[in-house]
């Protein structure tokens, strides 16, 4: 393995993007993710790339739209209120089927909210936000190493499916330092982009990138095509970590930073004789419903506990997957507060009747 270096999550995202062949970055400053832009401002010139501080998040996502249409590997990053502004662009990117990578280092809301870590953007990330029937692939890393690997993967997935891929992190992941080992060379899966606009240059037909279809049958056909693509992604791209569920009595479901806190809880609970396991969705969309459903059918499993930094969002998808076969409880904190191990453990003791 290559040398492990200590790096901040936000910087790792930027470095990973550059390593993945991203040469165009458009952004607008917002805490707690601005270090990505700081890093890019120094790093991009080294690889003759473009970093542009846009006049707004709205402009930034439309620059991404243009650069993606032009065939580039492109990224923008922001945090919750900024992501809300970019939602219009996400919908157009979906309609025009453009590959793009977006990072949301989530902070608390609603409104201007606060700048501390939260997971309150789960609904927005996985169920739209913008208008129309579309899906973004949503990746939820839980460590800095994984943040690196998933950022690289995000670019491959975006190109493969001509789809927006979002990294859903949070203030903790963005701000913390942890060791990361970069590979000597990235596996960049290049895809021919013969649909991109680059000037005809001898091409017989001109290329058009658009998301508007006034004819209802053509519009429906596009929607059917998109839905077929989404089914394909659901079939191929679910990523999930299953931890100690074989003998579990209580199964935690948690993603990102919440899952890390729960890791310690599992250790403590098992030391007390309560058998706890965990399902950690790495892709929030496509959601690992089948895995959850399969674990729900294990006889020893008596109940589920979803832990999130919000008022209960992913828990709805967990309940759909469990489909009433076992009770699903929820524990969450908001406002930038993280649930403590003690609090979660207390909840588990109650659930276990201890």
């Amino acid at each position, binding site marked *: 393995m290559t040398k492990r270096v200590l790096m901040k999550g936000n910087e790792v995202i930027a470095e990973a993007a550059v390593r993945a062949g991203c040469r165009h970055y458009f952004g607008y400053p917002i805490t707690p993710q601005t270090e990505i832009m700081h890093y890019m401002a120094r790093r991009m010139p080294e690889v003759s790339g473009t970093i542009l501080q846009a*006049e707004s998040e709205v402009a930034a996502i439309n620059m991404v739209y243009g650069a993606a249409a032009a065939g580039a590997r492109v990224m923008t990053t922001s945090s919750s209120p900024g992501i809300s502004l970019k939602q219009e662009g996400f919908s157009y990117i979906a309609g025009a089927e453009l590959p793009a990578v977006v990072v949301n280092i989530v902070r608390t809301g609603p409104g201007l909210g606060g700048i501390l870590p939260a997971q309150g953007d789960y609904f927005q990330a996985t169920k739209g936000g913008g208008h129309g029937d579309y899906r973004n692939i949503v990746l939820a890393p839980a460590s800095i190493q994984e943040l690196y690997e998933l950022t690289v993967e995000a670019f491959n997935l975006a190109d493969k499916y001509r789809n927006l891929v979002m990294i859903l992190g949070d203030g903790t992941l963005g701000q913390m330092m942890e060791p990361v080992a970069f590979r000597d060379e990235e596996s960049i899966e290049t895809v021919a982009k013969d649909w991109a606009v680059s000037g005809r240059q001898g091409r017989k037909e001109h290329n058009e990138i658009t998301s508007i279809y006034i004819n209802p049958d053509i519009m429906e056909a596009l929607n059917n095509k998109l839905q077929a693509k989404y089914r394909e992604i659901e079939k191929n791209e679910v990523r999930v970590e299953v931890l100690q569920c074989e003998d579990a009595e209580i199964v935690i479901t948690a993603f990102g930073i919440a899952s890390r806190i729960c890791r310690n809880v599992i250790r403590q609970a098992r030391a007390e004789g309560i058998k706890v396991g965990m399902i950690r969705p790495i892709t929030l969309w496509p959601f690992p419903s089948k895995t959850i459903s399969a674990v729900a059918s294990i006889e020893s499993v008596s109940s589920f506990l979803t832990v999130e930094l919000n008022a209960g969002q992913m828990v709805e998808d967990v309940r759909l997957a469990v489909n009433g076969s076992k009770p699903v409880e929820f524990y969450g904190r908001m406002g930038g507060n993280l649930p403590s191990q003690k609090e979660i453990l207390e909840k588990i003791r109650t659930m276990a009747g201890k």
Partner: protein
Amino acid sequence: MEKVFSRTEGLLDKPMHYCPGCTHGIIHRLIAEAMCELDILEETIGVSPVGCTYNNYEYFACDMVQASHGRAPAVGTGIKRVHPERMVFTYQGDGDLAAIGTAEIVHAAARGEKISTFFVNNAIYGMTSGQMAPTTLIGQKTTTSPFGRDPQVQGYPINVSEMIATLEGAVYVERVSVSSFKDIKNAAKAIRKAFRVQQAGLGFSMVEILSTCPTNWGIDPVGAIEWLEENMKKKYPLGVFRGKDLEV
């Protein structure tokens, strides 16, 4: 029979959807001819707006991208930064550019983004059926100013070219019209110049083109030309606001 006139190669062989008497068709042709004359048709990427010309990507023979409302200069920026050696233009109306997209056009110009914007000002929203535009004249009746635009209620029209010309990054800004043969010749010249400014890498270039909307003005095509001449040219005088002495 001898063929004395051909469609420009810059436009695809497709009937346009514009209303009778609308001047978008003329403006499309001027841009297309300019691309052919400068031999940049295969080098150019155009950006379509939201408005009556939302689908002009179906007409121009160069590569085209459709943008969301007002964001064409941002989309154009993204394209140009990926392909700095290519030519990029945006085609935008007065609602797209001067209302919802004010921030994008101002900042693209301020950055000196090496793109060319063709800004069609017909003092009204056409696509959505005749609402007031930022460039609607005082007293002009629209579906959202049915008693005439009253500055006390709806504020004043914006002189976009004069505003953009204050920005250092905007190296060439001219207002033209397509309401007479002479004006059309001048407009063609301005469009070519905008492209040449971009080709020379000098900065942002914009041509504002005064245009008619007989349908939503409620005037017949000939009357619309007269209305433009009499009213619009007073508020929006033709001329070069930046880059008068620029030789390209």
